[in-house]
């Protein structure tokens, strides 16, 4: 079902609210004195909340396509919208302490809102050109966000992100061109049928090139190398955002793309192999880290591996899409919770610096415990349900080897998360390390950490409700 032009505009209300919000923050921020930049924050939060409310009210029952089917209005887009918006809200919350009164506060909010919009467009794209637009919209604000601190590590990270993004962006456009060349259309509706009869080599090259761009956005192997650098070099706010939000759009987009591919091209096997490579490499590299931000950076690389598993069985199992969406929601809140703890204690750049936290600030320690064990996938946190459904979907889709890889990597990941938790909960620390004054968390980030941890637990326990939200049809590619 395709909507007419007026209905299409109406159906894109959340995206438009976000766009208007971003522009208002940009223009308004230019006229605000530095001490009154909190007004920008209010506008940004209002835009995010407004868009989220519209998106929640407008949860589509039956899939339809806006603008002649180039933009999907289905469960994938709807959940991606909600998760992106909620995650960006949480990022603003955890970044308030860091950004408050900063000379680029308004610009940061603009960049965050635009990058969030880009992630949503990526998720909703049902046309290769819209996908390319979404890619650019999601990427360009990120380069600026990464480079903001103007420190040598941030500059290096920004350059690395930019170069890799530019390279893979071009590759992606090349892929779009190839697919267009053999299919004669960029719309998914037309592609699905025509690619089946097109020369499979060209289709394969085109699909891999487009996937490359999406892997850059998701931060998966082999386009992952910018992630740990950016997580370490950028501000905590930017690090939290760029390891969470772009992935949501990129993975939903990858799911749609893989779902579209004809059987003549074995792109599913490739995605499966990349998934295993991502989780394994991310885990192995995380072992050696002592900076919590870099550790989280590598941990997100491994999480992308788990998230690619349902993409690898797209269309093979009815559970693949709900599993992906559920894992994305769970991952977003859990990862942001861990970053919120880092943001609450920004000067601790070493795992050993967390010694005594449990005695000094038991609630912050508990939030970290919930989020890190959540990232491992311990029940009853949300990621456990995500990993479980992903594992089930993979096996159900005929890829039991991916389930085994997922489980083995989960065991491997436990070790480095425990390396962080062990100093937090080590018994017998001297009194001065466990006194309340030993750790003075920043208030907004502290609140964000507690909220994220509570939501992680709540989503896990009430995963039946979450399942009801994520379980719905995609707009069919054909």
């Amino acid at each position, binding site marked *: 079902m395709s909507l007419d032009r007026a209905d299409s505009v109406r159906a894109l209300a959340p995206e438009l609210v976000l766009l208007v919000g971003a522009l208002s923050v940009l223009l308004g921020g230019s006229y605000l004195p530095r001490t009154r930049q909190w007004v920008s924050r209010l506008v940004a939060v209002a835009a995010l909340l407004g868009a989220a409310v519209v998106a929640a009210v407008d949860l589509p029952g039956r899939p339809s396509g806006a603008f002649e089917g180039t933009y999907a209005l289905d469960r994938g887009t709807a959940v991606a919208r909600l998760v992106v918006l909620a995650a960006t809200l949480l990022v603003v919350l955890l970044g308030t302490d860091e950004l408050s009164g900063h000379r680029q506060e308004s610009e940061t909010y603009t960049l965050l809102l635009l990058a969030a919009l880009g992630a949503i467009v990526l998720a909703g794209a049902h046309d290769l050109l819209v996908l390319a637009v979404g890619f650019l919209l999601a990427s360009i604000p990120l380069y600026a966000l990464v480079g903001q601190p103007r420190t040598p590590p941030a500059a290096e990270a920004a350059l690395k992100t930019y170069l890799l993004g530019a390279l893979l962006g071009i590759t992606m456009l090349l892929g779009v061109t190839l697919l267009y060349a053999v299919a004669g259309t960029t719309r998914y509706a037309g592609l699905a049928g025509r690619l089946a009869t097109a020369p499979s080599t060209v289709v394969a090259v085109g699909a891999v090139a487009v996937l490359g761009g999406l892997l850059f956005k998701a931060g998966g192997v082999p386009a992952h190398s910018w992630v740990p650098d950016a997580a370490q070099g950028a501000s905590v706010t930017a690090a939290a955002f760029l390891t969470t939000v772009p992935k949501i759009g990129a993975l939903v987009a990858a799911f749609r793309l893989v779902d579209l591919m004809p059987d003549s091209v074995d792109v599913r096997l490739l995605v499966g192999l990349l998934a295993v490579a991502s989780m394994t490499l991310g885990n192995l590299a995380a072992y050696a880290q002592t900076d919590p931000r870099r550790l989280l950076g590598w941990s997100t690389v491994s999480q992308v591996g788990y998230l690619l598993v349902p993409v690898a069985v797209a269309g093979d199992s009815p*559970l693949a899409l*709900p599993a992906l969406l559920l894992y994305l929601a769970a991952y977003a809140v859990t990862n942001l919770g861990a970053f919120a703890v880092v943001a609450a204690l920004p000067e601790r750049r070493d795992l050993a610096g967390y010694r005594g936290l449990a005695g000094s600030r038991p609630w912050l320690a508990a939030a970290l415990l919930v989020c890190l*064990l959540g990232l491992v996938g*311990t*029940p*009853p946190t949300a990621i*456990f*349900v995500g990993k*479980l*459904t992903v*594992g*089930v979907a993979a*096996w*159900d889709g005929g890829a*039991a080897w991916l*389930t*085994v890889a997922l*489980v*083995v990597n*989960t*065991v491997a990941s*436990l*070790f480095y998360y*425990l390396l962080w938790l*062990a100093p937090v*909960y*080590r*018994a017998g620390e001297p009194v001065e390390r466990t006194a309340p004054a030993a750790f003075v968390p920043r208030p907004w980030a502290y609140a964000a950490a507690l909220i994220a941890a509570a939501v992680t637990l709540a989503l896990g326990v009430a*995963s*039946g409700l979450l*399942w*009801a939200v994520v*379980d719905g049809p995609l707009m069919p590619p054909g």
Partner: protein
Amino acid sequence: MLSLVVLLPVAAAASLALARWLSDAVARRVWLAVAIAELVLVAALWAGFDAPKPGRLAYEEQVAWIPGIGSSYHVGLDGLSLPLVALTAVVFAACAAYALREQRRPRAQAALFLSLQTTCLGLFTAQDLILFFLWFDLSIVGMYFAIAGWGHGDAARSALKFFLYTFLGSLALLLGFIGLYVAAAPHTFDMVELTRNPPLAGRPVAAGLVLGAILLGLAVKTPTVPFHTWLPPAHTDAPAIGSAVLAGILLKMGTYGFVRIGMPMLPGAWRAWAWVVVAVGIVSILYGALVALAQNDLKRMIAYTSVNHMGYVVLGVGTAGLVARSDAEARTVAVSGAVTQMVSHGLITGALFLLAGVLHERAGTYDLDSYGGLAGPAPRFAMLLAVGAFASLGLPGFSGFIAELQVFAGSIAVAPVTAVALLGILVTAALFLRALQHLLVGATRGSSVGFTDLRAAEVWAVGPLLLLSLVIGLAPRTLLDVIEPAARTVVELVGR
């Protein structure tokens, strides 16, 4: 009712965690009060228990949880789970009494152990694989903190090893569960459904692989040779009540999984693997006993006797799979003995670990050679330790004898070669007598000098455990009447 029993401790734990103003003395008493309330509730459950028909459950409750993947909050009791639920309540009450003198963060400790109690009760009542896994995993997390937070020696390292090793086991288990789910038609994680219509019936290779994953997970937890290496360091460095819970309850999660999941859900594969299970059981019995004999550290020694005692359980459940060789009656006796052994071992080893904790608390060491003639300064300690040791080595009149007698009566009838495991009893007897001789008799010397005898709370913690073992040993029918019908059902299910 059953959910109340399961969730009451964790609710109390949450209250304790939030009540920062509560004094330590009150926190300890709240814990004890909740533990006793649990005992009363479980006693009520037992009194009202009417053995359900095969395939049915008593006190059943079911609420939808994640309908999308066929998982529900489903709890219920039968003759296999009720004894273990009762054991959990008893051992945790003993720990609460023992911990009345704890000085290190008693409020946090009470909250942690109450949460652990919920994970144990939850696991034994769970009738859904995901629910089972949830409690299985959380018990590992809880025990990690018990060892790391209240242990001694190289506690952080031992706790980490424990966590990593048993987490590996739990994920192997999860892999097996996913396999069961995918193979079941319609897809479900419900244990009752999976028992009624065992999946993978016609696919021996796949069933073997799934059972392999489940057996690996359970074998790590039990633990059996060769997956037992996490156990001795974990016990040595754990606090006394941590060891009591770990050995008394957590190890039973592994063996309970055999009778609850492995045997009824994959009967064909179980029969195919039965000889492997029997062999692992025998090796665990002999190896555990021999290594225990070589220990000079009392706690390490008790830890290795756990490997030995769990070996009897594994032998019993393995025997149940040797269908072609025997009548169902002998196999029923073996399974019934295995379940009895779970209860018996929980009581006796719990008591022994608490007594070992007294040694460490008074003199700071478990080394047998640093003591001598303890019977002089500490007669109550000496008497309870002697009773515990005799109970553990299988003296008639105690629960261990009833359990091991049944296991051997069943398994030797089915496969005479298993008689070789009888040697394990001999070695166990030798090692306990040797330990008693080192510790208790002779001239009072070394760390024994000035040793304070057991205080009232410690007697009240250890005494009831051993008394129960004695009661089961003298009047086993109360327990066996509950276990036997369920054991018969399991044997029938394996024989399908």
